[in-house]
């Protein structure tokens, strides 16, 4: 009976952890604590094989192997939860990075455009605008890599 209570509580805690707003590096700390516990339990079960069955009987599980399975299920859930959160944080960082690149590029292009307008206003007879526009193309524009066909064109 104890095992049912333990498992249900553990699953609920993992679920709550998933739904909680992101807070710093807590997922990393939990991962490390979990790994530490895993190492300890592994060593103990190697040294004292009867230990697992003893614990299992204590909390209402028939065999040590069954307890191991339950523990694995929980471990998998925790792993999924922490990995998901980690992914969300990494994605957020990528977004900030990409946005900074986009805005920096836009600022540079705007500055060149303003310069081109001033240029053409100062010398209306000179073809300043097309030149400047080419400069924008050449120096600032960084197109996203084309995955298909680009290699063939290079060769």
């Amino acid at each position, binding site marked *: 009976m104890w095992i049912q209570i333990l498992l249900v509580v553990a699953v609920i805690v993992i679920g709550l952890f*998933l*739904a*909680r*707003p*992101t807070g710093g590096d807590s997922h990393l700390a939990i991962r490390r604590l979990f790994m530490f516990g895993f190492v300890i339990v592994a060593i103990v079960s190697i040294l004292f094989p009867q230990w697992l069955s003893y614990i299992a009987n204590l909390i209402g599980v028939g065999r040590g192997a069954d307890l191991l399975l339950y523990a694995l299920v929980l471990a998998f859930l925790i792993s999924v939860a922490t990995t*998901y959160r980690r992914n*969300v944080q990494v*994605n*957020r960082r*990528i*977004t900030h990075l*990409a*946005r900074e*690149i*986009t*805005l920096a*590029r*836009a*600022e540079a292009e705007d500055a060149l455009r303003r310069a081109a307008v001033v240029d053409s206003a100062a010398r209306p007879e000179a073809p300043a605008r097309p030149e400047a526009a080419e400069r924008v193309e050449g120096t600032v524009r*960084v*197109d*996203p890599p*084309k*995955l298909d066909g680009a290699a063939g064109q290079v060769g």
Partner: protein
Amino acid sequence: MPERRSHVRAQPILFCKNGLMDSSAQVDPRRHSRDTWIVIPLYNEESVIGRVVAELREHFDHIVCIDDGSTDDSVAEAEAAGARVLRHPVNLGQGAALQTGFDYVGTQPGAGYIVTFDADGQHRIEDAMLMLDLAKRDDVAIVFGSRFLDDRTNPGWVKHVVLKTAVWVTNLTTGLQLTDAHNGLRVIRTDAAARITLEQDRMAHATEIVLKLGRTGLPWREFPVELLYTDYSKSKGQSVLNSVNILVDLLVR
């Protein structure tokens, strides 16, 4: 001065009678061209974006497309039609594109209002103009477009159920009482846009934007708009399965 209502249920034609468009200055089709920036998230819409931008250019000076890593000729089409195109180096999602647009417009001198507009041509420019009229006349910071305030739009019953569920979830989480969620046509005053940061990169931003704008406490309205469900926008539209993604994105952060 008409009383303040959170829901505007009148047809646009009634607004003309109420005095929204009675002076000659206000029926000028370019009356909002100087202080309004159109923000269009753009992702693989090469067949329609040129026409959408060209039509917007007849009414507005400033059209910003945020290309979200398109693999087709969307960027060239939008630029040829006269839009300012910002390019995400990788695909991030529509919410991320909107936030990039807000950040960019925030740096532009003279920007007073942002209109978010979909690239697939399902919004009517006339609706955007009337929403801007309303925002300026009643000095509200946010105007949400809603397709359910009148019966012009017929999304079909599956989409109707999905959208109404999205509305229900949105109202539940935001505390606002909207009649439509996930409608891409919005008018946001720049000071309101500066006070929010969208962190939902994907489609869940539509609920997030309502939530965060609502938290600013600035005055808001809904305005009846029509969505033009062309075959193209239908084929591009969100599938029912995608609403599962939206729900998970909102609940699991």
